[in-house]
């Protein structure tokens, strides 16, 4: 997106999705041009060919033609089904991050974007990502609905308060690309944008470890552990499971049995709801004793706590998510709502 380059018809193509979206666009543009032209030229031709030649002339007495009606129902139907299937297939890909995706956390608030990398580096209205690796953005909002939109990647997803939404892409071209908030979010909506920097993996690694504020060196899981202690979570959630609350070791990505007999998957949304609406789902064998932390922890702190809970997964190495478990959750890791 170089400014001032005149009228372009297609934006820069810089992710794994861009060629697919452009191909779909080109296909349907072709179909539309074909039919649009037939209809418009046909209209003009008919209007000219059958122009009135005498003031008292009347048109032919034709009521209709059923085979013709069937034809112009069936042919558009088939074409639209092609379009439907193609679009749905692409959509499923867009909503299914590969298991080995690298997670980056994004928090939207009026009117800025805050980004946290698991290794600890934070940035505002900028997003640095490595080239050629699937990146999954886990996004939360502190206030209203925002939307993270990178035109050059052809990806977009709303950032909805009260839940996590995700978006993934694999950047294919180094450079600097605009991202926008594309869900109207109040006064300075138009200013809530920034730049994605796609770096070579080596450059990205250097950037990650680069000299930032002192905070930058603490990983999110470590920050989360500190919070866990500060908020006195560990007094109930003992690691051996003998506390008043269930043990959190290995809980992330597992199936949790509830007091109602239902089983739910402990995904991002579940962890989030358990902190903010603790009585909504009670783990089997435990009492609804936990107080709510609604209003006591910020979105930033919540995702740090989450990173810590994730790091407690037995198979986890360091702060990385247990592969498969996290990524196989449905696109929206919301609660059951």
């Amino acid at each position, binding site marked *: 997106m170089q400014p001032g380059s005149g009228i372009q018809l297609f934006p820069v193509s810089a992710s794994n999705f861009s060629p697919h979206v452009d191909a779909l666009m080109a296909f349907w543009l072709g179909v539309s041009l074909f039919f649009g032209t037939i209809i418009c030229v046909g209209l003009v031709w008919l209007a000219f060919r059958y122009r009135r030649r005498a003031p008292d002339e009347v048109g032919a007495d034709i009521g209709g033609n059923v085979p013709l009606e069937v034809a112009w129902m069936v042919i558009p139907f088939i074409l639209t089904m092609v379009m439907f299937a193609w679009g749905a297939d692409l959509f499923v890909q867009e909503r299914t991050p590969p298991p080995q995706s690298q997670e980056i956390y994004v928090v939207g608030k009026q009117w800025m974007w805050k980004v946290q990398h698991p290794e600890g580096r934070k940035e505002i209205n900028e997003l640095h990502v490595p080239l050629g690796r699937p990146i999954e953005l886990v996004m939360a909002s502190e206030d209203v609905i925002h939307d993270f939109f990178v035109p050059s990647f052809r990806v977009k997803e709303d950032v909805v308060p009260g839940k996590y939404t995700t978006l993934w892409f694999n950047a294919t071209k180094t450079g600097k690309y605009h991202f926008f908030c594309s869900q109207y979010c109040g006064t300075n909506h138009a200013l809530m944008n920034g730049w994605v920097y796609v770096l070579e993996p080596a450059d990205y690694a250097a950037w990650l470890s680069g000299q930032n504020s002192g905070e930058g060196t603490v990983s999110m899981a470590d920050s989360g552990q500190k919070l866990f202690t500060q908020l006195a979570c560990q007094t109930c959630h003992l690691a051996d499971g003998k506390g008043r609350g269930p043990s959190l070791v290995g809980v992330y990505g597992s199936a949790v049995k509830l007091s109602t007999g239902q089983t739910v998957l402990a995904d991002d949304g579940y962890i989030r709801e358990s902190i903010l*609406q*603790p009585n*909504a789902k009670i783990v089997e064998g435990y009492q609804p004793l936990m107080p*709510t932390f609604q209003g006591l922890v910020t979105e930033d702190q919540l995702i740090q706590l989450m990173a810590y809970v994730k790091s407690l997964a037995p198979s986890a190495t360091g702060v990385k998510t247990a592969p498969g478990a996290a990524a196989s959750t449905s696109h929206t890791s919301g609660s059951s709502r």
Partner: protein
Amino acid sequence: MSESESILRGHFRDMPQQRDASSLGMWVFLATEVMFFGGLFLTYTVNRAAYPAIFAQASRQLDVTLGATNTAVLICSSMTMAMAVYFSQKGKRTALVISLLLTMGLGLVFLTIKGMEYAEKFRHHLVPGYNFQYAPASAGPAQLYFSLYFGLTGLHALHMIIGLGILTAVLIEALRGRYTPEYSTPVELSGLYWHFVDIIWIYLFPLLYLIDLHR
């Protein structure tokens, strides 16, 4: 016939056409009403599915006996309303007036009991937006339950009050002897409305009062 001619409005051809139009109009209006409540029913369904346990717990704050009593009261009033229609069709003016009075009386009983329930909620700090207090860890969803409780029953009560107003107008005309076997459409239409309000309550009672009482 002179009576029904004065009742026939100028743009209709005859009485059957006018009656047909009025009746269809009322039914179409009731279809609209179903969707009006529908938005609230959807909100209820979504939230109850999200917080089944908290909804059940919060519903314990309602008095099931009062709710059941009110259900019976409304069914009785529907019965008397049905009889009012019957008597108006038969041209029995006194019986019609008595049936209407009974219907309105039962409606007032319903609203009185509803008012008692509301007063209790005010005393127990269960009114969202006014004095809501609840166990903090369940407060949000419980407040949703009570918002829906007041929203649904309040909208229902509003319909009852409007219904009482309509019945008052019908009653006045009935006392004047305006309804005959040839012309009883207003009684029939207000009956349709009254029964519709009853139907709404038939759903509200189990949805709001009878959530998992066995727990």
